[in-house]
């Protein structure tokens, strides 16, 4: 496969990974808001739900956990994009940029560990 064709295919994968991530998170966020329409500026944050709490609450279709799930999916969308590009470059033999992707992924893992780890 030529480099151009591979590049086009990779661009399509990135396009779809971003689009699907935004659409799924948008649907989950909307579902959460519909489940709990009383949410608003009067809410005050302070404690972040853990991932198990988010998943358990979302499985019971509770509003706040559903919204948190949507927000986590939204935050994960750019990470999926890095994974798609890193894997794509690796299998096309573009090891340099696969390594660059790995470094960016490592930085994001540090951020996740600092934030919700």
């Amino acid at each position, binding site marked *: 496969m030529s480099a151009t064709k591979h590049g086009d295919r*990779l*661009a*399509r994968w*990135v*396009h*779809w990974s*971003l*689009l699907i*991530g*935004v659409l799924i*998170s*948008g649907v989950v*966020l*909307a579902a*959460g*808001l519909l489940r*709990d*329409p009383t*949410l*608003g*500026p009067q*809410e*005050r*944050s*302070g*404690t*972040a739900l853990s991932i198990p709490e988010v998943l358990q609450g979302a499985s019971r279709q509770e*509003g*706040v956990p559903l*919204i*948190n799930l*949507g*927000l*986590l999916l*939204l*935050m*994960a*969308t*750019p*990470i999926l*994009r*890095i994974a798609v*590009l890193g894997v794509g470059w690796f299998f096309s033999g573009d090891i*340099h*940029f696969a390594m*660059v*992707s790995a*470094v*960016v992924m490592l*930085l*994001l893992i*540090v*951020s*996740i560990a*600092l*934030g*919700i*780890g």
Partner: protein
Amino acid sequence: MIWIAIAGVITGILGAVLGVGGGMFLIPVLVFGLHIPMHNAVATSILAVIATSSAVASTNVERGTANMRLGMTLEIATTAGAIGGGLLAGMLSSNMLETVFAAVLIPTIFFMWRGRGEQDPDQHPANVADSRDMGALGGTYIDEPTGNRIVYRVRRLWAGMGISLFAGGLSGLLGTGGGAFHVPGLHLACGVPVKAAAATSNFMIGVTAAASAFLYYGRGQVIPGVTAAAVLGVLVGSAIGSFTNRSLHSQSVRKLFAVLLAILAAYMFYHVWSEGGYNVSH
């Protein structure tokens, strides 16, 4: 809740029409209009930036204007900067964060008023004739209005890394996209054509914002309902904005937005320094 969604829609439209992230507009509206504490407003803006960046970047990647190799390389700097900015924001008071935000608005107003050079005839200083000469980080795309194939080479990567570190730091600290600095920086310092610089900056900012979003989320500074309404509003606004004709009105809208930002910056300075300003601690 409806006002938050409306603010999100306007932010999304501005982002699509002006080609900038809407955090500069969304944050003052949330803080002054809806009395949401500064740190929570920044967290909301960061999530909105991820949504717009992901939606817009998906299109730019398909068109080929976003340079994925350059973007991924510069993301090393933007994500490091965003983590630093996000950690620093956790140490600053709301007053201090507002002051920094208002100070950053000033150069943004300048860039907004001046424009980013889309109309300049010499917007491709680094063009090379042959795609074999564009190097590992260079790129090529079809310029839609003219149909010309634009080929460019990236110069002074170190400068691009420095600009990206700064833009990432601002994004993590203030919840803005940083495009107002990043796009002219990539164009002037690295020779990337404005359209490619804007698309690449947008491509990068989702990852940059995600790097600090986890920090805000972990500190419990994301207000779920507010953020969800803002994100959904921004997505709808982006879709509406993409149907508007940028070439007809972007100059006048940009100048109007610059004036609005100047008023907001003046009000923020006044607010912080008058009678103690907000006493909301994060």
